[in-house]
């Protein structure tokens, strides 16, 4: 039993943002039916990381991750029968998730202007790059271009202005953020629907999601309380914080308060170079020269240290020093193991592997990776019956091509 048992979700989405939203719901027990094109299925089936395997479209680690606990129903909604089938399905759903370009929903016969009249209890969420009425110069978008429209891109990484601005971590951070926002809205809408019986149309703009994530800075900038400018360092904070090489990788140090400086002194064994610094320089006299000098000494020392060991010692002294973890470190993290962040999933083609679960532990209704991502059309038989769609109906809708 989890929190969203009994909630019916139709996932029309075919990219990372919508599929991640669906996953967030499915891992809490919602029944998520993923509509896929016969023959090829969701485009995310063709995106990496691909595991070695023989079955085309069934070896994507991305798809496997994004679609745990979902059911796949393959039929072509672009045929007249398919459109009728989709319409019938809508009447049985609590939630619809889409993440296509703005005109797509209309093209498959879902008109947002009258959906609330037609299906008053339906919660429909549309995730797009720039909202549903983008200007002509924002019609075509990928996660990279949205990230760079939001302010994050230009200022990534911090402290850099000689090389090109970067994309952020991984390929899909923009989409994960938008999918998360969508899931929050959908569940909030469901909460209210429990008493009102009314659905809702929700529109999530990826650009606005990302821009809202920098509200602490952007909110001050639009109010005139923080300087704006064309500098790549405009979001930055002064100070010696940063990533430093260690013997076995990298560590990140944050220092902003006298307590951090005291802890650093203990960690380093009270070196004489620190005596030249005023005691409260981090707060009051944080000059670029001092930052550079401090960084030089810290860098030299950290190169003799191992990242996990030095972090454990530093943390106990009150210095916020942490390892810069890679994927292997995460799997080996005793904290992740304690919290069982990775869980084994057995996939019929990919076999057994550890998947990331969710970052929240709910005492009564924990999220669960109960079932692997579906094979393309895996649930046509069972869903066809359940939804009273005859085999002939699905075949007519291009089930097999």
């Amino acid at each position, binding site marked *: 039993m989890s929190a969203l048992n009994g909630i019916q979700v139709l996932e029309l989405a075919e990219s990372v943002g919508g599929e991640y939203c669906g996953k967030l719901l499915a891992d809490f027990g919602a029944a998520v039916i993923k509509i896929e094109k016969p023959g090829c299925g969701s485009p995310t089936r063709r995106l990496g990381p691909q595991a070695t395997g023989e079955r085309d479209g069934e070896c994507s680690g991305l798809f496997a991750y994004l679609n745990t606990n979902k059911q796949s129903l393959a039929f072509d909604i672009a045929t007249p029968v398919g459109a009728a089938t989709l319409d019938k399905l809508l009447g049985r759903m609590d939630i619809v998730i889409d993440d296509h370009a703005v005109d797509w929903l209309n093209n498959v016969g879902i008109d947002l202007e009258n959906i609330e009249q037609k299906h008053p209890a339906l919660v429909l969420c549309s995730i797009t790059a720039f909202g549903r009425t983008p200007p002509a110069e924002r019609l075509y978008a990928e996660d990279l271009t949205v990230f760079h429209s939001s302010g994050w891109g230009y200022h990534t990484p911090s402290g850099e202005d000689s090389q090109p601005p970067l994309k952020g971590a991984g390929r899909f951070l923009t989409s994960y953020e938008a999918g998360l926002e969508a899931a929050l809205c959908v569940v909030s809408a469901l909460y209210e629907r*429990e008493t009102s019986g009314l659905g809702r149309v929700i529109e999530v703009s990826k650009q606005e999601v990302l821009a809202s994530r920098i509200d602490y800075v952007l909110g001050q900038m639009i109010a005139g309380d923080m300087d704006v400018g064309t500098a790549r360092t405009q979001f930055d904070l002064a100070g010696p914080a940063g990533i430093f090489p260690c013997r076995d990788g990298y560590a990140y140090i944050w220092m902003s308060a006298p307590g951090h400086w005291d802890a650093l002194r203990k960690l380093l064994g009270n070196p004489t170079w620190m005596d030249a610094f005023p005691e409260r320089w981090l707060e009051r006299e944080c000059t670029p020269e001092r930052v550079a000098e401090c960084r030089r000494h810290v860098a030299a020392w950290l190169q003799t240290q191992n990242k996990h060991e030095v972090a454990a010692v530093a943390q106990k002294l009150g210095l916020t020093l942490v390892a810069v973890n890679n994927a292997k470190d995460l*799997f080996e993290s005793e904290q992740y193991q304690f919290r069982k962040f*990775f869980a084994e999933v057995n996939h019929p083609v990919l076999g057994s592997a550890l998947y990331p679960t969710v970052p929240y532990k709910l005492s009564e209704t924990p999220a669960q990776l109960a079932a692997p991502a579906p094979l393309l059309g895996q649930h046509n038989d069972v869903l066809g019956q359940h939804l009273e769609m005859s085999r002939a109906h699905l075949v007519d809708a291009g089930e097999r091509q």
Partner: protein
Amino acid sequence: MSVKTRSEKPQNMRGGPLQGVRVVELTKVWAGPYAGKLLAFLGAEVIRVESEGALDVTRTYGVTDINNAPGFQAVNPQKLSVQIDMKTEEGVQLILDLVKKSDILIENLRPGAVRRLGLDYATVKAAKPDIIYTSMGMYGTEGPLSYQTGYAPCFAALGGLSALVGYAGGAPAGMNIRYADSTFGTIAAYASMVALLHRRRSGVGQFIDVSAVESMTSMIGDSVMDFSLNGVIRECDGNRHAEMAPHGVYPCRGGDWISVAVAADSAWRELAAIMGRPELATDAQYSTLAARKANEVELDRLVSTWTADRDVAELVVLLQRRGVAAAKSQNSVDLIADQQLWARDFFHAVTNSDGATRPVVGPGWTMSRSADISAGAPRLGEHNSYIFGDILGLTVAEQEQLAAAGITR
């Protein structure tokens, strides 16, 4: 810009999906307050418990007027503020009384703090059995490393993000230093809402333990899968993308940058044509994605050379007209001047208690029957009389007594 008049409606009658939901925040800085802000923007009545003796650093950072602190104002619009000294027994009892009349409690205090204060889940649950208690910590509340603390960039480093951001072959450079808190807050808000929905359907509340570090890993789940399935440890790779080329940020005239992402061969043909190099589209070195990936250094050089002396806005229009995904890499001046963000009311003005208006950053959604967002961040203790009087039913004399005793300072 539309200026919204401060609503005369009570905070708990602003519409939106969470109208009627009451949230108590025991939070600091950005991550916890961001979770509360999202719930407030969805219509909930969100109450920040504050005290002169333990002010949030965002109320004091760089300013003398704690009621006009820009950072605080940016992250706390549409909330209520009540003054209660959590370090007194009476204060703790007041908070428990308030929680009895609330639905969700969110805390992101230092590890162990709520236990020391006497506001841990077991105690709160005894007072309010069906409370949703959301605890936010760098590593979660339990486990061998749960004693450790850090700021946002630490979450990104520990969660695996920083290692992925940087230039190919170089040291990790990390995400922007501001990244992590707001994402962590959103994740806490989502989990809280799942639990609240469950309570509405079952009557049962629960404890939620959210990890900032794991929240970060959730933003790179697919990269982590590469290690799980293939043993591959992903490293920083500039702007590379396995399924797109070109995929990068290229220099333009005047120090501007343009981001361009090409997935389909058809888009590459358009780009080659716009560049005045149609022959590249059929050149065996670039005609397919695999070929472009194999020759990506040279490909990036070709694109950079073409963009370098051109105007970024003109390039974007040119590329978009032919179906190529492209956008200016927006600096902070571009952002606050983004016409679409203003036209869509993403930036809109709210009114503070002194009548002054101030623009705030909206949420990432629009929805039918949405909540009214028209009030600025609260003054310290602005809602003391509403909360002590209307919610907790204390008489004016009782409130005066508490104030005199320093419990509600």
